[in-house]
C-alpha cells in the first residue's frame, strides 16, 4: 500500500512486561494471554494517518531476556522510535529502565524518539510502581510517558501514534535527515522519484561541506 513515510520502531524492556502483547494489540487488535517467549525479534506492521498522511509503522518486538541482547542491539541502530516498556506490577522492571535507556542511547542514533510505557494498567490492585514515578523518570530523561494496558487496549493506539507524531514533527523541523536510512525513516514510493533525486544531489553537496573546508 502507498504511504508517505515509513517509520521503524523497536519495542524494548524486560522479559514479561508485555511487549509482544502491545504489538499484537496494536497490529491485530487482540489480546493473547499466553504467548510464546520471544526469541530474537518479531515483526509487525500497521498503517496510521497523521496530518492527513499515510504512515507505515514497521515494528520490531525484541526479546527481553539478557540472552538475546546481542540481537536486540542490532536493531537500535536504524530505528526512528523506541517504546521502552516496564510492568507497573513489577518494581524490578522499572528499576532496569536506566540500563535499557543507556543501552538504547549508546547504540541508537541520537534523534531516536523514546516513549516510556508503563504496561498492565488494568492490574491496579497489584500495582508496584506509581504513575508519578513513571512520569518523574520520563521527565528526568526527556521521554514521553504513558500507562497502557495491552489487555484492555487502553492507550495502546495512543502510545504508538504519539511516538509517530513526535517523529513526524521532528521531520518537519528538519531534525531527521530523511535521506539517511540509518535514521529509520523512509520516504514512501510516491515521493521516491522527487525525494531520491534531490536526495542524491543534496548528499553530494553535503559531502563537499563535510570535507572540512567550507
Amino acid at each position, binding site marked *: 500500500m502507498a504511504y508517505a513515510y515509513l517509520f521503524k520502531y523497536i519495542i524494548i524492556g524486560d522479559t514479561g512486561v508485555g511487549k509482544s502483547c502491545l504489538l499484537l494489540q496494536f497490529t491485530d487488535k487482540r489480546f493473547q494471554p499466553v504467548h510464546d517467549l520471544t526469541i530474537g525479534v518479531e515483526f509487525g506492521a500497521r498503517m496510521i494517518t497523521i496530518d492527513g498522511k499515510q504512515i507505515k509503522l*514497521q515494528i520490531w518486538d525484541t526479546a527481553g531476556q539478557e540472552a538475546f541482547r546481542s540481537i536486540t542491539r542490532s536493531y537500535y541502530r536504524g530505528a526512528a522510535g523506541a517504546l521502552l516498556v516496564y510492568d507497573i506490577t513489577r518494581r524490578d522492571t522499572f528499576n532496569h529502565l536506566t540500563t535499557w535507556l543507556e543501552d538504547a542511547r549508546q547504540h541508537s542514533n541520537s534523534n531516536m524518539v523514546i516513549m516510556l510505557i508503563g504496561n498492565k494498567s488494568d492490574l491496579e490492585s497489584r500495582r508496584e510502581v506509581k504513575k508519578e514515578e513513571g512520569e518523574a523518570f520520563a521527565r528526568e530523561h526527556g521521554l514521553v510517558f504513558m500507562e497502557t494496558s495491552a489487555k484492555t487496549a487502553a492507550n495502546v493506539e495512543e502510545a504508538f501514534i504519539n511516538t509517530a507524531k513526535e517523529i513526524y514533527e521532528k521531520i518537519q523541523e528538519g531534525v531527521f535527515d530523511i535521506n539517511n536510512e540509518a535514521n529509520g525513516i523512509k520516504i514512501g514510493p510516491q515521493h521516491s522519484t522527487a525525494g531520491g533525486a534531490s536526495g542524491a544531489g543534496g548528499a553530494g*553537496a553535503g559531502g563537499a561541506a563535510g570535507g*572540512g573546508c567550507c
Partner: protein
Amino acid sequence: MLSRFSDVLQTAADVLAPPATRLEDFEYHWKMILNFYQNYDENNKLHIEETRIPHHLHQMLQLIVDEEKEQHGGTVGPCMEAIVQRSICLLDALCALCAAERPPGARALALTTGTALLRRTRQPCVNSAHVYRPLQRMLIQCNESPASPTEKEEVELLLTLCGLVRKEPGLANIFTTPFVEDKSTLLSIPEDIQKLIPIRSKIQTPKKNPLFEVELPPNPLRNVSIIRTGKDDVCNATSSSSVDDNVSCKSHKTVYDDNDKFLLIDLLLSYLNSADNQVVLRACEGIMIVSSLPEDDIANLVTSCSPACETIVEKLAAKYKCVPANVDPSDVDHLNITWAYVAQDFGDKSYSKFNGYRELTSFFSWLDYCDTLMKECHPTIAAHLSRTFRQNFLEGTAEAGITDIHHAVLVTAILAKCLKVVDSPDLINEFSNWLVGDGEVSEWPLLHTLINNCLTENHDLTLETLRFFETIIEKGTEHSIQRVVLARVTSRGYRASPPAPDEDERDRLNDLSIGREREYNREAMKQLQHEDHVNEQITDILSHEGLDPKHHDEGTENIHRVINSFLLLLPRAILSDPVGADYEHYIHDAHRRYQYWLDTTASFGWPHDHGWVDTTASSTHSYDSRPEADIHLDEAFHTKHNAKDHKFSQKLVLRTRDLTSQSEEDFDEGPFFKMIFKLLSNLPTQPYQVNLHLTSIISQLALLPHPNLHEYLLNPMLPTAKKTPTLFKTLQEVAKRLTMEIPRLRNYKKIIENTRQCLMSEDPNYDESGDHNQLVESLIVLEEFCKELAAIAFVKYQHTLHMQR
C-alpha cells in the same frame, strides 16, 4: 436380578469415579492421533488443518504446560515424564509426521508443535535423548530438502534451540559428535514408530547433504562431552525417571578430530542461502546467539568443528562479486545499512534507488552482520572470523581490483566504505594490517599501489583513494598510523640542528626598510592593516583563553607566531574572506576532533610533548626561527617581478643554510608524505573535491597528538635541511604560485567573490556546471585550510597549557 444389581453398582461407580487424570487425558489425545494414522488413507487429500490432529496436539501441549505450573522444585509432571521415558513417543511421532508430510501440512504442524513445546515450557528436558534425538532427526530430515516450503518453521525450531543453548550452554553437547548419530540413523524412523504411524516417509534416499560430507562415526561414544557445565541438570536430577545419557555433566574434551561436528551451527549455516530473507535473518540471529556465548568450549566448536566463519566470509565475497561494475562510485558513500532491517526492506519492490542499489545493500548489510557478529561474539570467534575476512575476502577477492584500471575506482570506493562502516576492533585491525602490512616489513606492495593510485592522472581514482586514506587514518590503529604516517618522523630526521636565535629576524615586523618599501603601495598599506587586524584577532583569541601575549611568555609568543604564519600565508589582496569571521567555527571544530584523537590514541603509547620538551633545547612549542610566511608573498604580489621574487627566495634559502648544521643524510619523508606534498603542490590544477579531501587528510594528521608529527606539520619555524620538504614549505610554494597567477585573471576580485559564494552555497548543480575556475577554487581551499591549521595549532597549544596547569 443379580445382573441388575451389578448394573446399578457399575453406574454408581461411574458417578463416583474421579474425573480422568491429566495423564489419562494426555494418553487419550495420543491414542486419537495414533488411531487417525492407523486408519489413514493415503489417497485422502484433506489438509491436516481440516483434521483433528492439530486439536489433539494442541491439547497435549496444553496439558504439559498446565502440569508444569503445578510442579515445584524443578520436578517433572507425569505427562512430560511419559515423553522423557518414551512411553508416549510424541516427539518421535512428530518426527514421523515431518518425514511423511501426511496429511499435507503435517510437517509444518510438527515443526511448530515442537517449537511451541520448547518455548512454552520452562523445562522441556532437551538433554534427554528421547527429546533431543527426535528433534535432531526432524531438523536433519527437513534439511534434506533445501528450500522447502517449511523453511520458516524449520529455522524457528532451530532458533528456539539456540535460545535454549544460550540459557543452558551445556545443551550445546547434544549437537556435537558423540551425541549426533550417523546420517542413516538420523534419517530413519524407529521401527516402533513406523508401526504406530504406518505411513511411508516422503524422504527415501538421502541426497548429498553438505552436513554429512564428513562421515560420522558409526558407533557414537556416549561418555565424552565437549562442554562443561557447572550446574546439575535439573530435569534429570529431580525427575523420577532416569534418563540414561545425561549429556550435560561429562568430562571436558578439548581435542577435536576431523569428524567432529557442531550440528547446530551447521544446520543454521545451511539456511543462509535461503531465498527468503526472513529465513536468512533468523539463521543469522541463531548464529549470533550461539557465537556470543561466553563459554570457550563452544567458541572452539564454532571455529574448529564448523565452517561458520568461512561460510560467512564466502557469502560476503559472493555478494561483493554481484555488485555491477557500472555502479557510480559516488553512490557508495551514501549508503547506511543495518543488517537486521534489510530483510524487511527487501520485501519492498521499490527498494532500489540507483543502479546496483540492491546488490550494494545486500553486500553492506552482510558486512554489517559480520561486523556486528564480531563485536558480539566470543573473542576466539572474532579473531578467527576477522582472519578469515582478511584472507578470503580482502586478499582473496577484493585486492586484485585495486590494481585493475577498469575497476580500481569502484573497488577503492567500496573498500573505503567498508573500512568506514566497520566498528569491531578485530576487524579494523585485520583490515588495517592488510593495508599497511604486518610487523616490520619495509615494503608493502598494497600500500604502494594505493599511494601510486593517488598520483595517477585519473582524478576519480585519486579522489576515491584519498577518501580511502582519510578513512585509513580515521580508523587508524597504532600499527597502521605508525606504518603510514609516523615511520619516518619518529627519528626527527627532518630536523636540522637548532639555529642560534637571530635578533634581527625577531624584529622583522618592525623592520623599517620593509615598512618603507610598503608605503610605496596602497595595497601594501592594506596588507599591513590586515596583518594588524589578524594579529589583533589572535590576541583576542589568546586573551580570551587567559593568555596575554603582551606578557612575554615564550609559549604564548610562539603560538602567536604559528597562527600568524598560517593566517598570513596568503596576501590580503587575494583573500576571499579577509575578515576571517568563521575562525571561531574552526576552533570549535578542532576542539571536538582533537578530543576524539586524544581519546582514540590514549592507549597508543605515543610520547607526550613534555617528555622531551625539557631535554632538548628546542621543541614543538619553542620556536627558534621566525615565520617566513609573510615575507615574500606580499613582495611577490606587488612587485610581480619573478626575478626579484626568485632572488628573495634565494636569500631565504641562504639564510636557512647559514643556520643549518650539516645534516649527514637528506631526510626522506617516505612515500606517503611524498604523495601528500606532491598533491598539495598541485593544488591549483586539481579538482575541488580532490583538494578538499587532501586538505582534510592533512588536517587530520595535524590533529594527531604525536609530538614529532605535530612539530613536522605545524611548526612553520622548524629548522630543516634545505631539501627536507615540510607542510609549510609546500604551502608557501602554492601560495606563491597563486599569488602570482590569480591577479593575472581579468577581474579576479569578482571571480574570487563569486567562486566563494558558489562553494559556500553548496549548490548541488555547481559541480556539474562547467564555468568554475579551478585556480580560484584552490585559492579558497587554501585560504580555509590555513584557518583550519591555525585553529588546530591553537587548540593543541591550549590543551598543553591546560595539562600543565
